[in-house]
């Protein structure tokens, strides 16, 4: 890192790997505990307190997993792409570490979204998979994540993997809205409006609050997981650094 950071010292300090490694470690419980509380609350609210839907009966309750996971699947991609941009432009290793750490988490949330959607589809549509616009977009998003991770793993050199995958993340993030729009357009042509709308603004409050709490809880879960994973990424990147050897000795 350069010496002429000037007024950016706080940023510089945060971006220094040993400092960040410690901070991230300390932050884990601060994210993990709220995540656990919020997710338990949301699950209880969603599965027990919320009334059954008059049309979908109890099957709708899967949205308390499905919707927060879907939200996180997109947010992870945005985080990954933003971190990649920062890493690419300012050549900050930590940003690349965050991007690399976010990808598997995002892919997992995408997979959860797809599985939950599929489980919901069985009682609703009588089939495990239907080419619904949102599910299809989500599937392509999973492909984007898999492509990103495949590209990372194809490089032996970490710096090159970081920078190449960062370019891909940025290209992907420009394409995500285009893909979504095209899939919605395609879907509106090929399928009637028989697809049930999930949720919707008319949702009564006692159904809605567990959903919002759940979304918040899953966001904290992401933050906790990202802290854990980014520490791992920092370790790999700094495996030769002296501060790590001191840490080991201590």
């Amino acid at each position, binding site marked *: *890192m*350069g010496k002429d950071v000037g007024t950016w010292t706080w940023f510089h300090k945060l971006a220094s790997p040993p400092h960040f490694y410690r901070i991230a470690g300390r932050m884990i419980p601060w994210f993990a505990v709220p995540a656990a509380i919020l997710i338990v609350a949301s699950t209880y609210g969603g599965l027990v307190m919320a009334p059954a839907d008059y049309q979908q009966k109890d099957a709708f309750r899967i949205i308390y997993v499905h919707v927060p996971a879907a939200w996180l699947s997109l947010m992870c991609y945005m985080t990954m792409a933003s971190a990649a941009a920062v890493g690419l432009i300012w*050549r900050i290793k930590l940003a690349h570490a965050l991007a690399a750490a976010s990808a598997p988490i995002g892919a997992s949330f995408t997979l959860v979204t797809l599985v939950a959607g599929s489980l919901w589809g069985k009682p609703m549509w009588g089939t495990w998979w239907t080419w619904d616009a949102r599910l299809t977009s989500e599937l392509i998003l999973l492909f984007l994540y898999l492509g990103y991770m495949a590209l990372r793993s194809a490089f*032996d*050199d*970490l710096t090159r993997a970081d920078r190449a995958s960062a370019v891909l993340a940025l290209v992907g993030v420009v394409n995500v809205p285009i893909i979504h729009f095209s899939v919605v357009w395609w879907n509106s042509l090929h399928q009637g409006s028989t697809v049930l709308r999930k949720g919707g603004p008319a949702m009564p409050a006692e159904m809605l609050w567990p959903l919002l709490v759940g979304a918040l809880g899953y966001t904290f879960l992401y933050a906790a997981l990202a802290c854990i994973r980014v520490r791992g990424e920092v370790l790999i990147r700094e*495996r*030769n650094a002296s501060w790590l050897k001191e840490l080991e000795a201590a």
Partner: protein
Amino acid sequence: MAETDSAALEARDLHLWRGSKHVLRGLSFTASAGHLLHVRGPNGCGKTSLLRTLAGFLWPEEGALYWEGRPVTEDRDGYAAALAYLGHENAMKADLSPLENLRYATDVRHPTERRTIESVLERLGVGPQRDLPFRALSAGQRRRVAMARVLLARARLWLLDEPFTNLDVAGVRDLSAVVADHARQGGIAILTAHSELDLPGSELRRLELE
């Protein structure tokens, strides 16, 4: 900041890592008009990495490179316009003739007349081969054609990675004369070579990498 000409190229405290290998450890040097810099060292000591860093392919983790007093990262294309790089590969298309290859390589920088290209090929002893497919040339002739590209680039800074590879005695002599000429005209050349260099009438300096 260095003055424009006293140090045209300045490397300040370069640190370069390749994977887990610390290749350049705080390397600093300057090179000014008329200087020839001979980079030496055993295999794997980072000679090629240094030249690729100077060419702008590799970014040092620490330290910076200045061209005419300005960091090269400020204006990469401007810096590239001032340099000519000869890598391990000759950067020639096997299916095109030397003349065609050189026309594409040179015209992209400066429109160059056919006669100029031909005379440079003559000077480097590959005039008769100018219209043959590049693949038909011997390894030494290929290296000479590649060197013709450097000569035609109208660049002040030459970065030559093992330019004498595959050359016979006459080839080494021709090439040495070309490099010495470049320096006499105020150019800078940084080159790697295993053997001792015989460059008459030029200020030759050594950079040892361990």
